[in-house]
């Protein structure tokens, strides 16, 4: 079955791959925002993850270690954010912007000499005969481990937030940090851990771009994926499963426009490649307006600085 030269099963399979970076970054940012911290430096953490993961994978020859390196790189930058916003009480938006500007510069500095190198390959998870099933095999059983990991981590975040004491504390800190502090919870520590988790996830997402999606290193490789991840958190109204829907929606659009470019569509390439950004804006408009607007679901203490006077 072909639609204009595009096979739907292959399209679905490739949108699942395309959406992994933003899914990982968005679920990390969701946890950060649930703890009441707005980190707009996702783009910077992603690109640091992309280069750290790439360097680790190339120098060890092990793609799995590459992802660990990417997570470490993202978390390291997130740690700087945590120190600035939690200990030194800096403005979160300004610090997030600094993170992005610094990350873009530092990554391109670290990436000198890594242009044009191929990273070690990550193969698909061997499902044996399952992968040969028509349609379903291509969609469900032909991916690398990170695709399954991204779905699993969303399920895990959902379960932790909904069913565990840890999740309750995290949400309490994000909804009302003064009350959480009065109850004896360490607001700063909870937020530090959430920020580090967010950084690690964004870093892994970035590593996925440089190790699997592209796969090579170029300056500015993330191309706004971190910002789209931020938009997806708003789209998802801070609900984990909706991150998956949002991620697949954007993955679908970017794959579709790439396919249209490849199949020689009459729409100029420039206009096709701006479509993910325009659709992000459109989705933000739809989600933010009207009665059921997403912002009503935002954590109440989002973006506010916490300073315990006692």
């Amino acid at each position: 079955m072909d639609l204009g030269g595009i096979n739907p099963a292959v399209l679905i399979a490739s949108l699942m791959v395309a959406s992994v970076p933003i899914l990982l970054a968005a679920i990390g940012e969701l946890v950060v925002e649930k703890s009441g911290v707005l980190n707009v430096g996702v783009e910077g953490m992603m690109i640091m993850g992309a280069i750290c993961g790439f360097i680790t994978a190339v120098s060890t020859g092990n793609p799995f270690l590459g992802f660990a390196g990417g997570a470490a790189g993202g978390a390291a930058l997130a740690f700087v954010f945590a120190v600035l916003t939690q200990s030194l009480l800096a403005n979160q938006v300004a610090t997030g912007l600094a993170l992005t500007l610094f990350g873009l510069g530092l990554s391109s500095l670290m990436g000198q000499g890594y242009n044009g190198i191929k990273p070690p390959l990550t193969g698909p998870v061997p499902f044996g005969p399952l992968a040969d099933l028509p349609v379903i095999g291509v969609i469900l059983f032909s991916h690398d481990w990170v695709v399954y990991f991204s779905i699993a981590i969303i399920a895990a975040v959902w379960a932790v937030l909904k069913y565990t004491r840890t999740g309750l504390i995290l949400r309490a800190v994000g909804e009302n940090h003064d009350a959480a502090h009065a109850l004896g919870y360490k607001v700063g520590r909870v937020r530090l851990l959430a920020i580090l988790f967010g950084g690690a996830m964004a870093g892994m997402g970035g590593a996925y771009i440089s190790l699997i999606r592209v796969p090579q290193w170029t300056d500015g490789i993330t191309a706004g994926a971190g910002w789209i991840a931020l938009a997806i958190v708003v789209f998802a109204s801070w609900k984990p499963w909706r991150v998956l829907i949002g991620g697949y929606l954007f993955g679908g659009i970017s794959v579709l426009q790439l396919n249209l470019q490849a199949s020689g569509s009459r729409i100029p390439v420039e206009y096709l490649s701006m479509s993910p950004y325009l659709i992000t804006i459109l989705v933000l408009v739809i989600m933010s307006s009207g009665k059921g607007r997403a912002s009503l679901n935002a954590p109440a203490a989002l973006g506010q600085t916490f300073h315990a006077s006692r």
Partner: protein
Amino acid sequence: MLTLEKRPTPSRFWSAATPVVAVILTMIAGGLLFALLGKDPVAAIRTIFWDPLFGEFAWYLRGQLLVKAGPLILIAIGLSLGFRAGIWNIGAEGQYIMGAIFGASVGLAAYPTESRLIFPAMILAGAFGGWLWGTIPAILKTRFNTNEILVSLMLVYVAERILSKAALGFLRNPEGAGFPGSRNFAQYPAASNPELIMGTGMHWGVVAAFIAVIFAYILLQRHILGFQIKLAGQAPRAARFHGVNPARMVMLCLGLSGALAGLAGVFEVTGPAGQISIDFNVGYGFTAIIVAFLGRLNPIGILLAGLLMALTYIGGEMASTNLGLPAAAIQAFQGMLLFFLLAVDVLTNYRIRLFARGAA
């Protein structure tokens, strides 16, 4: 145990001293970074901060200082008004590009007519283009409650795509033998923005930047609108009681900062850049965010911060040719400056006190 104690009012001393402290800390940390890259840190710092002003080629490089500082100051002045009111326009890069495209389009449409009116018309078109691109997030914010940070940033990517379409398509030089890029404005006197005084780097964009500094200073110090902008940022509730219309404030701040960024774009493309090309924009819109904060959102501060940031651009280029320091190092250096600034800024609003733990 160190604890922070909130000051009743921000310290005036630290408010002025933090940028200086941040610059010194950045020089130290930057030196360490350069040493890690295997360069002599002292030589690198001297090449970046000293040689452009007093070194061998200072006669030429001092002029470049204004060329780079002009757009940075012009954009940062606009951004600072919004940042003061708590309105985060981070898409100045896109507004800068759109200003350049709009302005250049008017000039190229008039080619090869010679008239004194062409250049002013291009400037107006550039300001309009930037205003238009800044007003999109403003309208979406006031009408649909969308986040202006995300929308303005997304529009940067859209503007970059339009720029590449312009350079390769609708604004390409018909006599350019198929090469990307528009006609060069340096060869079209009616539309060009030449150096006004030889050797100073002074062009109309720099003049506009100085005028913007003066206007912003008067606006913030003497005008009711400036008071309202400051009030909206410091006490949004009080601002509403004062009769400040938040929607109007958003439209004003985003529109004005967009228009100033657009102006910077059209001055750049007619002057130092010379033509619309795929990558004529070099990230001034993003660096201007650092300039605005480094100048403490104060017009005079922004003027000084813009000059300093221009110095790092020029010194960075010199260090890259003379010492082989990667060009990206300077970008990391600029980002680091913002980190240190935000970090030491805690001293403005808080006192550091020594407390025995558990005493309270």
